[in-house]
């Protein structure tokens, strides 16, 4: 079901639109240069450095060396990569389940407070993620306010812990990235034509049936965009595992960070980065094919 506006068939060209197209081309230049300089060029550097070595001072050197690629066969990396994938997927699902009702309530029942409510969600995220996570690690610590209160009320015993556990890490990831799920869902729900829901009711659909057959499919693209926006940063994150995780919760981001800092091995760090990007790219392919299919369906 196509809900967003689709461009109509192209109109015949005339002089005015040709000069307009030249203007668009010129307007593309700053953005293109920016992306080329800071995104693509740095990616190319990372890719090239994956085949590099280090000099005796630990400075990275370009080269054509396959040691780093071979080093990635180490089972330790595979296990950590799989764990990161699992955590990121779980984070996605939890974010979706938590964010949907929030976005729904704001978009359809927020009334004149809509913007205020969205601001209330977005503004706290202006504070640095690391600082906020550090704050959580104090609140959730064994002698911190939360566990002390739980122990006092008998809901927790002396061995209960929140930090340095898998759920702790996933909770940190959910907290860190849920805003990226709420915003696209909100946009999709806000854009949705409410009369569709009314039509669903008119056709004797109960609230649940209307939700699953009308609302949910209509906002599918927003959900998919949200999942991508949450999954990508969650997969590469190292802050949550660093502050909320223990030895059994290390994520691939932590290992990559170690290579760039303590390990003084930028080439291996680059190779691991490329490996992670390859895994993410495979995941993205599925998403891209899905959206293309959606578009094709919509065009019919």
């Amino acid at each position, binding site marked *: 079901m196509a809900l967003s506006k689709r461009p109509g068939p192209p109109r015949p060209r005339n002089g005015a639109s040709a000069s307009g197209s030249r203007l668009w081309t010129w307007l593309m230049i700053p953005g*293109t240069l920016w992306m080329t300089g800071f995104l693509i*060029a740095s990616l*190319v550097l990372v890719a090239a*450095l994956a085949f590099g070595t280090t000099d005796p*001072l*630990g400075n990275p050197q*370009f080269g054509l060396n396959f040691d780093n690629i071979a080093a990635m066969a180490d089972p330790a990396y595979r*296990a950590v990569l799989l764990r990161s994938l699992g955590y990121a997927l779980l984070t996605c699902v939890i974010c979706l389940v938590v964010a949907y009702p929030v976005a729904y309530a704001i978009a359809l029942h927020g009334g004149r407070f809509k913007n205020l409510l969205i601001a209330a969600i977005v503004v706290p995220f202006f504070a640095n993620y690391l600082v906020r996570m550090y704050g959580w690690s104090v609140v959730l610590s064994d002698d911190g306010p939360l566990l002390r209160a739980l122990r006092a009320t008998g809901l927790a015993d002396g061995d209960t812990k929140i930090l340095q556990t898998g759920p702790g890490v996933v909770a940190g990831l959910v907290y860190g990235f849920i805003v990226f799920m709420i915003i696209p869902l909100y946009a999709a729900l806000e854009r949705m034509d409410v009369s569709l829901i009314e039509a669903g009711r008119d056709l004797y659909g109960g609230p649940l049936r209307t939700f699953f057959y009308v609302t949910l499919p209509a906002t599918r693209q927003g959900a998919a965009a949200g999942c991508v926006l949450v999954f990508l940063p969650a997969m590469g994150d190292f802050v949550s595992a660093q502050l909320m995780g223990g030895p059994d919760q290390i994520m691939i981001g932590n*290992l990559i960070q*170690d290579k760039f800092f303590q390990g003084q091995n930028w080439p291996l760090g680059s190779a691991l980065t490329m490996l992670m990007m390859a895994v993410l790219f495979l995941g993205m392919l599925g998403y891209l094919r899905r959206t293309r299919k959606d578009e094709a369906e919509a065009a019919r």
Partner: protein
Amino acid sequence: MSPEAPPLSRRSFLRTGSGAALGLGLGLTTAGCGFLPEDPDAHGDPDAPINVRVDGDLVYFNWADFIDPAVFAGFEKEYGVKVIQSNFDSMEGMAAKLNAGNRYDLIFPTAKWAQRLTAGRRLRRIDHTRLRHADSVFGEYSYFADPWYDPRSAHTVPFTMYKTGIGWRKDRIGDHLAGSWDDLWNVRAKGKVFVLDDRDEVLGMGALKLGLGVSTDDGGDLDRITDTLQSLRPHLRGFSSDSYNNLLNGNAVMTQAWSGDMAAMLGQAKDPSVLGFEVAREGAPVNSDCYAIPTNARHPGTAMLFIDYMLRPENVKKNIEYIGYPMPVRGSEDTYAALVEPFPECLVTADDLKDDLFFRNGSSKGERARDTAWTHVKAG
């Protein structure tokens, strides 16, 4: 603007983008094969004598909050200059800034990094005869007269010293431990033990427990160390260098810890008597930070004056009380001993230095082997 203008095709956009990027990448590669410009002479002559006089404001680069602000104020007033401060949060970060061509007058590398920077001809020669207070350092602490990282301390002056031991909560696991690295395996602490999130410290601890060299990069040694540390993993709550908060907020009942952090806790814990600090009999890694002047410094004269100013007895005392790290300066020992009276093992003595348990630089291959071992320890 006509809204219906056809957008630039994504393909041509990508082609333009990647072409330009490739050009950029190749340009960099062919320029010198190195990732960053590596011509040391571009930075200036390390051996040129420094004219000790005010030659501008001091551009200072150190860990955050590592000198008493009152000492800065005093220097600014006495010499009529400003101190322009910037901070690093890791040695790697410091080196990256230097490599990027940033210019500082005074930096504070650890021993290991001092050796690397000297080898790269990045540090100016410091003539000790031009420092009025040099003898209170080199005359008293003979170790620093000719340290391994900088022969005859030709490019550095030692600043602070510290060592690594075990901090614990006396109220949770008792007043006394066995005084050995084995204590980390103590069943009473199981599940609430942290080790530092630091490759050298953790591998070094395993090595000392097994009686091996702290910086070993021998494959057989590293396998034994990894096995030993794997047996510690079930006891571990995590890898973290935040010993201070972990002990205070109860996440840790025992943690590998740096002496300086423990000294700082004495001043800030509500009840310091619940804390203990011991040094293992198998040996305690030691380390030191030093003053150094990069070869591309704009104001090396002011930097020399600042080092001398910092070595004045009254300023040494102020700084020791402010940061909680001992300094190898004659006459400062009592100040530090009084500061860490509950933790006498925070003291770094001439004997500790003689044991020479510094972490050393290894070959590229050796560093790589250590790094792999660390990955196995950390990822399990």
